[in-house]
């Protein structure tokens, strides 16, 4: 038992040593590059402007699983006076749920840059009204990545893709629905293409009977799967593209660019946003309701969503689509950096084929329908 006492006192020592006068804890759901973005770029910039403040950046893992962890941590802290996190970077699904459960603070009225983000994504997260609670950090989009050496003319629609996969068995790969959102996005795109009224799925209203119309789409997807490779995860799809084991696969555009920058994709890989379209989603900056540092958190988000930071950090550094409206970036960015963003996917294509995910209840119906009718 003495060991316990020693451990406790040593632990107290470590915990008590103050890192700085004030600490701003930023939790990001996402890949390591998003955590590093706060750690290396935003954090130091913010610390410089606010002497005595230390920014701590932690990551909770990529995908919805990462957002779910943030949600769970905040939920566990419901009974506490303050939360561990002051700024959270989360996905749409978690944002909707956290707003509904009162875990987030309605802060955007205090942040001027909120006016720069007027798109639908700033107000609507999978059917939940989140206006006032979020400012988009960046927009991301799924698209098909293909190896231009192996595929001369990439399919332009889902129907063409289905034909192509039949002629080139196992050359198309995606990660099902349990291995990450790029596969989920592909399945959602498939249902948009073949399941009937896609607009209703994105905008509502929800009608539980709609899912009966998808049986044919799911049956076709099951047949399609016989010719497809099921890859292990978002990264698994990129991985197989890296080794040339598959020629086409759905990927997140931001991941695609960072893999290419890390030398993990052949230089001749290209993107194609097929019609009628594939889903994309933003990452949101939010402040937990019980953050102890609300003022600082607001200042941090104001900096992160300012046109200059969006131009230099989001677009130029990472090739992410900006979270605030693009027109605010004019003059902040050289043309080359802007054009690079649209090398493969033109702004027109993005406007017409970049879709949101379905509203939450349809979303769940699609996933469960897939589990029952395609994977089983």
């Amino acid at each position: 038992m003495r060991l316990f006492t020693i451990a406790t006192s040593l632990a107290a020592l470590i915990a008590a040593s103050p890192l700085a006068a004030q600490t701003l804890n930023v939790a990001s759901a996402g890949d390591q590059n998003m955590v590093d973005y706060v750690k290396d770029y935003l954090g130091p910039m913010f610390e410089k402007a606010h002497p005595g403040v230390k920014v701590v950046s932690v990551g909770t893992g990529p995908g919805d699983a990462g957002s779910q962890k943030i949600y769970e941590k905040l939920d566990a802290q419901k009974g506490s006076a303050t939360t561990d996190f002051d700024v959270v970077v989360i996905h749409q699904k978690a944002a909707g749920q956290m707003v509904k459960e009162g875990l987030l603070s309605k802060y955007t009225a205090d942040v001027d840059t909120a006016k720069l983000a007027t798109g639908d994504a700033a107000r609507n997260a999978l059917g939940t009204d989140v206006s006032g609670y979020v400012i988009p950090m960046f927009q991301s989009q799924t698209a098909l990545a293909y190896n231009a050496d192996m595929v001369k003319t990439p399919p332009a629609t889902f129907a063409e893709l289905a034909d192509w996969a039949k002629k080139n068995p196992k050359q198309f790969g995606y990660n099902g629905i349990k291995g990450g959102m790029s596969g989920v996005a592909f399945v959602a795109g498939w249902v948009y293409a073949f399941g009937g009224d896609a607009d209703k799925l994105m905008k509502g209203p929800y009608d539980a009977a709609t899912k009966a119309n998808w049986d044919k789409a799911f049956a076709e997807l099951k047949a399609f799967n016989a010719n497809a490779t099921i890859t292990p995860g978002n990264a698994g799809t990129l991985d197989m593209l890296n080794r040339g084991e598959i020629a086409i696969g759905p990927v997140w555009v931001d991941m695609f660019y960072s893999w290419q920058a890390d030398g993990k994709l052949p230089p001749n890989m290209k993107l194609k946003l097929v019609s009628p379209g594939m889903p994309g989603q933003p990452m949101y900056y939010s402040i937990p309701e019980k953050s102890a540092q609300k003022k600082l958190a607001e200042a941090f988000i104001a900096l992160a969503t300012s046109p200059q930071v969006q131009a230099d950090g989001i677009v130029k550094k990472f090739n992410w689509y900006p979270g605030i409206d693009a027109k605010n970036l004019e003059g902040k960015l050289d043309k080359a950096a802007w054009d690079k963003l649209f090398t493969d996917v033109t702004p027109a294509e993005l406007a017409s084929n970049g879709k949101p995910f379905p509203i939450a209840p349809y979303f769940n119906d699609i996933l469960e329908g897939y589990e029952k009718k395609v994977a089983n």
Partner: protein
Amino acid sequence: MSISQRQLALLLIAPGLALVAALFLYPLSFSLISAFTGPQGGVSLDAFRKAWELYSRDMLFTVVIVLASCLFTGLAAIIIAGTLTLGENRWIVGTLKALYRWPLFIPFIVAAQCMRTFLAKNGLMNNSFVAMGLMEPLQAVSFLDWRGIVATFVWKQTPFVALLLAGALAALDRATLEAGRNLGASRLRVLVELALPQVMPQLLVALVLSFVTMLSVLSVPMMVAGSQPTMLTVDMAFRINSYGDYATANALGVVTYLLSAGAAIIYLKRGMAKEGAT
């Protein structure tokens, strides 16, 4: 005397139990409650019904994978530990000893990542075979399915079992083994008939622990194989992350737990039967 021994036993086990009770049983009770609560509240088996309906195939898949992995892990560990104990060629024993433990230090998630790029169709393994002339490029197949999961588990768990087994073998009375050798028994016979029976408890403990560990690993099935079919841990994570459905996830957890408890009880029963016999 016997009563006070019982009290002593309970006293000795109490601190450990207290830790498990506070940090595990108490929080677990919330999970159990959620698994047995219906959507409208009240006791219900809905979550289990749903778990069975959607994931019965994955349950079977999980059991088969984990059992196969335990089998191969056990065999590989016996070969390694046996060679270490009874091997006569110093050079071979030395090399083996230096090598076999390395995977022990690799976390599952990294092992999964290594294997994903190693076992793939155009991965390092097939590429090496092609470069050595053992295989034509066209014959290359991907092992990124159940075989990949089993291979990763065996690769990662064998050193664990072998380490415990080799320790137990080293603690055996050398004289008996030497006597067996002197009587003309082959090393294989000495290992199987003399040495192994004496270290069965340790081998089984190591295998039960491996069984339970493999059941609870998320990263390997997630990263090594595609998700159709997949292991229960992936389904649990999916239930939570995609639907926020803790009830079904917890029901799957109860299934996993019953599987582990089953393995543990088979081991414990065997031990008790033996104790009763002697």
